[in-house]
């Protein structure tokens, strides 16, 4: 099960955060800072899976953007690794340009909607790129017209 999805820039500022297990607001900032510190301090030769407290982190770096997914022990790390790639490809397709942390910031709600189409209450719901984007495209068309 996925516990949370975070997108942070290289300076450690959160660009997107979504929690699938209840975490108090006061604890969120500390958790995010700690997790980010963990991932940002990893060197190139180290693998993308980190054992953190009693769960695991899977992270990937895309230019200046880090995507960190916290998962429980039972989850297949490699498949989550691929899921992150899938997510980024969907974002690229929707925004029709390479995703950067600024782009995410300015269309935060849209990114949340896309994420909702992929992950629902901690479980993967759809992985097909076009099917993920269909509802969003439909809504966009509706609101444009």
């Amino acid at each position, binding site marked *: 099960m996925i516990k949370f999805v975070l997108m942070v820039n290289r300076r450690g500022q*959160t660009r*997107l*955060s979504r929690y*699938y297990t*209840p975490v108090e*607001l006061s604890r*969120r*900032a500390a958790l995010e800072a700690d997790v980010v510190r963990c991932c940002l301090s990893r060197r190139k*030769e*180290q*693998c*993308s*899976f*980190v*054992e953190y407290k009693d769960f695991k982190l899977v992270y990937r770096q895309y230019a200046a953007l880090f995507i960190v997914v916290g998962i429980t022990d039972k989850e*297949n*790390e*490699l*498949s989550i*690794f*691929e*899921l992150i790639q*899938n997510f980024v490809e969907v974002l690229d397709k929707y925004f029709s340009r390479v995703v950067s942390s600024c782009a995410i*910031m*300015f269309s*935060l*709600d849209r990114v*949340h*909607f896309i994420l*909702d189409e992929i992950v*629902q*209450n901690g*479980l*993967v*719901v*759809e*992985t*097909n790129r*076009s*099917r993920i984007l269909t*509802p969003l495209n*439909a*809504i966009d068309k*509706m*609101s444009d017209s």
Partner: protein
Amino acid sequence: MLQHSYTHTAMSPSVPLQEMIRAIRSARTQCEERGVIQRECAAIRAQFRQADNGGRSHNLAKLLYVHMLGYPAHFGQMECVRMIASSRYSEKRVGYLGAMMLLDEKQDASLLITNSIKNDLSHSNQYVQSLALCTLACMGSAEMCRDLAPEIDRLLRASNSYIKKKAALCAVHIVRKVHELGELFAPAARSLLSEKNHGVLHGAVVLITELCERSSESLERFRKTVPDLVQIMKGLVISGYSPEHDVAGISDPFLQVRLLRLLRILGRNNETASDAMNDLLAQVATNTDSTKTVGNAVLYETVLTVLDIKSESGLRVLAVNILGRFLLNNDRNIRYIAMTSLQKIVGTDHNAVQRHRGTIVDCLKDQDASVKRRALDLSLALVSASNIRSMMKELLLFLSSCPPELRSQAANGIFTAAERYAPSKRWHIDTILHVLITAGGDVRDETVPNLIQLITNTSELHCYTVHKLYRALLSDISQQSLVQVACWCIGEYGDLLLRGDCQEVEPMQVCEDDVLDALETVLQSHMSSTATRGFALTATMKLSTRITDNVDRIRSIVSIYGSCIDLELQQRAVEYNALFKKYDHMRAAVLERMPVIERNSSGLINGDPTGEPVKEVQPSKVKTEVSLPLPQAADQTCDLLDLLSSSEQQPQSPPAAGSSILTQPLGTDCSAGRDLLDLLGGLEPTPPPTAVTVYEKDGVTLTIVCEKQSDSAMTVTLTGFNSSDCDVSSFTLQAAVPKSVQLHMKAPSGDSLPAGGAAKVTQVVLLNNPNKVNLKMRIRVSYSCRGSTVQETVQVDSFPGL
């Protein structure tokens, strides 16, 4: 708080999101940022209070951004509720998103959206339905779930695939919240397996997984679906290229992974189910393309499944071979998970993992710290009698270059392995020495006494060992454990060192001055800990009987430390001084060679409840039967030491915390010690009182010491001691004497005897025998040990010393 914001340029109330973000980003300090945000929040609040306007969703979006930065945004909750109830889709959308982020079931506001969710679930627009489903799945309370479960079930059966897949995941949340409702969804879940749409299939598989994990009846029921699942999986694996689901050449790998996981749950502990999947698993294992990560993800899941169900051995070997192949992969992520999986199965499939030992040992040199750690764990688990020599070579190589956080684990692992599989004693000693030289600071504290025990027991290698240790000491005195062992050995076997003739090492002429120089360097070095200096001092003292020329030098060293600031060293020095002066006749006997130490159990540290580094080898591990290394001729010394310590401790041993004076070898504190010695000095004309063992069983002993106080009165001191390895409690003594003798028992010092002789119990009995009858005493000993009570009676007929 808001006052100072008025001095800033007034911003238009409904600033677009981008503007706000730019303003926040341009804030140079935290304080400035807080100011900007407070202003924005105030504006948003004002906006919320106004009637319906077009910018509502905008404001909420801004609020969500602020919330993500960590600022409180609870005042937006009601706005979310209002927006969810709106008829405009864009507002509903942001409202639901806000609800998911700002609300949880503990908030009161969440109750207010129950109705909206209920209505929206049957909305005509599927996107609205999906919003409601998503929100319910995210934060639905138990009551909401109970209320809406039938609706979800309906959606699972009769709607389009988009809704079905979302409903399936919503059902997962409901089952998590209200376990009993699992029954409700089981039939629908079953029927969803025949859908073609992968999203729905995925949802169905996830739902079934959840149901099976929750209840064993569901697990039984869904086992019947194994053939169907196998069919679906086969379809994915053998099917040709399908553009819809293709990810790097694999057809819907995410669904494959999910199916494999469900098969794992269903096949666990069940022969029939496992048999049904054997062929499929073999097919997936061999056909999946492993050049890309996706393929490896599927292979990984397959391996996990094979190893968890009751698969046939051929399949297991195939799985382990896949893991072995992963170890050689360039991608470090894959190496890491291969290691983790091998770790889990090294216990059960030991032989299969052994085949990949070479690769695993190579991974000790990997760059990644987590891979290194895993490799170390695995290597230690794979050590066996047949490969000990080659493995140890690799492990020692690793130890010299490993990262500091792994050092102690490596050192301790090496010790355990060496202990279990050492092909020869000399190899064992060499290995331990090597570890101490490389990583002496990271080893556990028991290593020093364990090593000393090992050395003592290998009498044929004493000469070799002491030579090697001496050389190590000359080159480096910073590793405390090594220095302690070296000092001890030099003290014990100094004569062998000075004799200089050892075939196994290159000849080196060592003279007495050199040895004393080395020990003095240790004593004076600031790198040596107190314990180490204690070792060195004692070793110097022991050498006084083993060397011939420089005894004066030793005498002077010892007397210098008589005024050392450190209490421990001062005490020792004073005791040794006394040995030189008053008890010179005893010195040779006291400092004689140690006997072979028998091991009761490893890791027993005597008399040190705080677990500090062992200061000296603890001969109390010796069974009470083993006699002191004293020549039979010196009866006085026997008696003296018996009196001083019924635990046969060497005079060099440090004081055991909390024991009574009688058990302290030569006294806990200087004054007491000196008094005792003076007492004995005064008694010299008459033989000193002896301690006689009157009772001994399973390591628990009782000794008595008698002292005549006057013509008819005497004191008998009963001392209980426990050298076994289980604690004794409720230790009580009762005594009976002939009728005419008066008996008065004083309060005992305690009633518990911890294992290993850490403390004793003493009880003083005053006897008055006016009629001078033949004195006999019956003593009843009762205590509990290992949960059972022991009660014994002994009769003492003769009292020595009378």
